[in-house]
């Protein structure tokens, strides 16, 4: 089973939920945690994994052989991203705009374009106790997260209960991360920002046709509008976590909630059971 942890709004507690869920489940079977928040991965701070392997993530970008090139302009014509410009005597490539689709090299009538790898990030693979761990890291200054997400998702081990930590938002990196999940937990908080962004995240999941439930974090200050919305939209609230300085303090030190306060393990196991029931019903 693949469970993704997403949110719309950032900083609502995805990392807390992902790491505590993984740690709670580790004694009951094989667990894998995959951190797909490749712009700002944080799960490793809490799980302190031992990395055994590191792989570069690259996209293929065009390299033009000026000897063979007749400057016909076909490459520039087929590039949807304006990543290649054909001048009268020279072809210019703009690597930061290239998506690596390969159209230019395939369609060049002179066979003058080959492809070279451009590194955009890395994937690190290892383990934390019995938890299999992997995360992707987008290189600083790079734009394109999806290739790194695709690469880290190739490591999904179908024998495990897989937990995927997703970046905030609703655009392409989020879709890329969530796609293929059996269930998605949406972590939010009881504030107008939390509600607004939860509504957007729910729309994403409906578009992808993936069932979801809510984890409501920092319950205490705030209002009841997230709960009212969930009731109206028939979205189950599967776990609530109170606003608590002790929880915030453990989080600030990189200590997983279920290690700081072990009784939370029970709550996360119950959460998993609820998800399990929903997926299998």
């Amino acid at each position, binding site marked *: 089973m693949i469970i993704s942890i997403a949110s719309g709004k950032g900083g609502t507690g995805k990392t807390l939920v992902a790491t505590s869920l993984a740690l709670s489940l580790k004694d009951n079977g094989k667990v894998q945690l995959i951190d797909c928040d490749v712009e*700002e991965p944080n799960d490793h701070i809490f799980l302190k994994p031992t990395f055994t392997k590191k792989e570069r993530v690259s996209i293929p970008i065009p390299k033009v052989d000026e000897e063979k090139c007749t400057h016909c302009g076909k490459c520039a014509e087929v590039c949807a991203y304006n990543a290649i410009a054909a001048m009268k005597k020279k072809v210019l490539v703009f690597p930061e705009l290239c998506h690596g689709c390969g159209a230019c090299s395939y369609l060049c009538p002179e066979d003058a374009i080959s492809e070279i790898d451009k590194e955009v990030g890395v994937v690190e693979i290892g383990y934390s106790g019995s938890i299999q761990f992997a995360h992707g890291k987008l290189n600083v200054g790079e734009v394109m997260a999806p290739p790194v997400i695709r690469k880290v998702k190739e490591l999904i081990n179908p024998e495990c209960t897989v937990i995927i930590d997703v*970046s905030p938002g*609703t655009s392409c990196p989020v879709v890329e991360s969530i796609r293929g999940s059996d269930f998605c937990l949406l972590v939010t908080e009881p504030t107008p920002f939390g509600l607004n962004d939860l509504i*957007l995240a729910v729309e994403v999941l409906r*578009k*992808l046709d993936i069932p979801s439930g809510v984890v409501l974090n920092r319950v205490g200050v705030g209002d009841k509008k997230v709960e009212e919305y969930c009731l109206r939209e028939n979205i189950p609230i599967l776990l609530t976590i109170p606003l608590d300085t002790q929880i915030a*303090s453990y989080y600030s*030190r990189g200590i997983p909630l279920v290690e700081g306060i072990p009784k939370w393990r029970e709550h996360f196991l119950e959460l998993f059971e609820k998800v399990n029931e929903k997926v299998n019903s």
Partner: protein
Amino acid sequence: MKELVVLSGKGGTGKTSIVGSFAAIAKSKVLADCDVDAADLHLLLNPTTTEEQEFWSGQVALIDEDKCTQCGLCEDICRFEAIHDFKVDPTSCEGCGFCYNVCPDEAIEMRDCLSGHWFISQTRYGPLVHAKLGIAEENSGKLVALVRQNAKLICEKEGLEHIITDGPPGIGCPVISSLSGANLALLVTEPTLSGIHDLERVLGVCHHFGVPALVCVNKYDINEENTRHIEKFCNSQGVELASKIPLDNIVTEALIRNLPVVEYSHNGVSREIERLWENIYRKLKG
């Protein structure tokens, strides 16, 4: 005209609450919400939209079943695994048009995508440019660029002093699009190991694009040891730690009432944000 962009790396550190307060304090400015896939600033500013525009960007492939001979070439060459069983999954398609260009039966059409909307609004604090990226859409970077462009036009036309931009979390495409060419970045962090880790990366992006940065630690008293660590880190990077804002539930209370915290209360949080803006104002004047 000077442009401040507020970023954080990690989400939920308080960018929008701070920008909302700057909106209330700063006198001559246009506001830009560049968190186009989960925009929240409008919730604090209660805008009246005066102009709404469609954002058409990119394309998706569509296969004409009647013309398709099911040769499978499109599926073979697609690097985004967007074609299965002679159908295109529009959420995977990156609109490269490779399939369109190679289809021997001319059975593939490229259709323009309506990827979102952008708005010019009036608020009690001045003009706001904001946007809504379509659900699960691409090209957020281009929509961010459009929001900033229009904020600039308004700033010039109305002779305003500042553009104050609320940025998205992360370090990727929309962040780089929000940051490049700005005069100053305010990096809002929190004293957690995650916050510190993410601050280091987003500061790296600022260095990469040559934008000077200031750091603000929000909820600094959650973990004062970590706050000291951030202070040391900033020193080592030659970056000013411009502000330490205490944890106070009043920020959430103000938010529930859809008000910038500086308008809701005049306690320590508000005074600290006011001091921070004065500091930024001087830097922008520089």
